[in-house]
């Protein structure tokens, strides 16, 4: 699933167990990925700032179906930004929960100064590293990407995480050019979605408060 891949890219599950991305960006990126899953399953369509439900049939995956149920219950909310803000409130918990239930991640809860911080460690190194590796190979070799990976690449870029994927700075310029091409050629609903996530992440910087 798209959100699982995004989580594995944005969280260092094979090393420190801590997120690579700041909390707000992580939550928004995962919210975008959850909507992206429904776009890929052709349940919703994103056009500009609008999000519309086109098929209410269950995807048969509990997290995605919960999002779908929310969309079904509130058809009057059609603004992508509203849904991103709403889903961002629970996206980290939902997606990490899904990965823990699947057995790929093991959580470790620590309490530091009364704040509990969860860490997640992968049980299978290869599977956990696969999304980052796949993305890195595709971006450095300008290889073809499946729609789900196109969505992943552009969401990762929308959250300013591309540099974390491309650990060799020499590859970054070419990869960025390729990402621009990707964005121009990818299916419109996915492109519009990643633009909305990019805008939401940017606004989160501009209105940041403690």
């Amino acid at each position, binding site marked *: 699933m798209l959100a699982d891949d995004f989580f594995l890219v944005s969280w260092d599950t094979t090393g420190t167990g801590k997120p690579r991305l*700041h909390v707000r960006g992580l939550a928004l990126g995962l919210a975008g990925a959850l909507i992206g899953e429904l776009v890929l399953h052709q349940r919703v369509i994103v056009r500009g700032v609008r999000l519309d439900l086109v098929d209410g049939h269950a995807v048969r995956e509990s997290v995605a179906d919960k999002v779908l149920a929310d969309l079904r219950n509130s058809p009057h909310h059609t603004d992508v930004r509203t849904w991103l*803000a709403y889903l961002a409130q629970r996206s980290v918990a939902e997606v990490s929960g899904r990965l823990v239930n699947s057995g790929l991640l093991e959580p470790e809860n620590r309490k530091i100064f009364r704040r509990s911080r969860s860490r997640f460690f992968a049980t299978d190194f290869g599977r956990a590293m696969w999304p980052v590796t796949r993305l890195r190979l595709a971006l450095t070799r300008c290889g073809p990407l499946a729609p789900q990976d196109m969505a992943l690449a552009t969401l990762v870029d929308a959250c300013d995480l591309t540099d974390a994927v491309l650990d060799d700075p020499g590859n970054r310029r070419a990869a960025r050019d390729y990402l621009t091409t990707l964005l121009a050629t990818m299916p419109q609903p996915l492109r519009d979605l990643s*633009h909305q996530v*990019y805008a*939401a992440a940017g606004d989160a910087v501009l*209105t*940041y*408060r403690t």
Partner: protein
Amino acid sequence: MTRSTTRTGAGRDPVAGALAANRLGAPSVVYFVLSAAAPLTVVAGVITTGYAVTGITGLPIAFVVVGVVLSVFAVGYVAMARHMANAGAFYTYVTRGLGRPAGIAAAWMALVAYNTLQVALYGAFGVATAPLLEGWLGITPAWWAVSLVAWALVALLGMMRVDVNGRLLAVLLTAEVAVILLFDVADLINPAASGYSLETLSPAALFVPGVGALLVLATLGFVGFESSVVFSEESRQPRRTVPLATYSSVAIIAFVYALSSWAMTVATGPGQIVATARRDQAETIFLLAQAHLGPVVVDIARVLFATSVFAAMISFHNTTSRYFFALGRERVLPAVFGRTHTRSGAPKAGSIAQSTLGLATIVLYALLGLDPLVQLFFYGGAFGGLGVLLLIFVTAIAIIVFFAREPHGETLSRRLVAPVPAAIALAVMVWLALDNFWALLGVPQGDALARVLPAVYGVAALLGAGWALVLRARQPAVYAAVGMGAKAATAQNAAQTTAQTTAQTTAQNAAHDDTAQGTA
């Protein structure tokens, strides 16, 4: 009844309910605005140095007048904010009202102004901490050494995005205002021989040569009030919360500064305030208070002065790096300014640029042996304050033009009745400020510095407008999205999609025409 309806409504709409839980009320917005305004920095640093450098005593009435003008300006400002994609920055208003070249010109001016205001604070920090370091550790380090430590902390905190914790900031702000009011009371119950003279609060105090200097200084005190609209999307009832918070902030600032600057003149006597401020500089209010309140209270106040300056440094650092960021996202500045630090989410390039400028300024001032309080803090503040005044004025014009073109469902009073007098008053203020800039710097009339500094904004504006024309010719998609801030990407995307669709439609139509002709 209303409450139960609301509750049922929220129950029916879990999305709206969940999003509303996190929203801000007016008091929170006021706190955010005032903590950026750093009241003790203004009272202990700006007001006292203002008396000393300008030699004019009408500051108290200037705060009242500027407060009134800005309140009237705020009517149109908060009304227009409701129709903006990126409400936080003046240049976006100018863009919508007066066009993109004017908008980018304003953006360049704003970058100069806010950067200057930030680096100016490094001049105050050494002065604010000197008595403390001497009292506690018995050392008197050079101002630049202390400022370099502060600079390193600001650079680090800015990059790590460790804003001073909101609650801590609120506690500091409350303490600052409490100390200011306590000092005012002490000043007022111990008047000088001249008694409760209202001379400095009388409008007559404004009819003196160099009054423009006072108006710039007063405007400087209000810097930060414009940020209330940043929280439009995050406030509980944007139509009520944001205007209420803006008017309250302006009123509180006007009251506290007018009272404090007047109380000082009561304690020394209006005829003595300039001489006292020239002798005691930033120590003025502390020495005045020491006689009546004792050393402990005064030491606490000194600590708060230092924390106030430090909080203001961080606040202006973040404001400035976000300015860079918004322009980077619009691609008006290179795209690298629109990227964030992965781990912290801080606007990386903007933060580094701001810090570099700060370091260069401290080093330059130290090498040239310039005075940190007057030539860095006060001149920087005055220069930055002039920039903000110019921006407010241009925004006031933009508001009128914006609503003249399309009422956007706003009432006549918000579109015209308030904005027009505000713009006229601001025009007078700008004219006086430019004409009297020599008085603000404390240099003789006709001095080159008083002409060169304001001209910097003219150059910045020209360069900005020129850059806008370059963008229009070379990057129309970027040009189209100027003023959209972080939402620029979606607009650029829409512009490209429209262009593609138009191209496709044109191609299809051409093909259709060819077929039709072929058929014919």
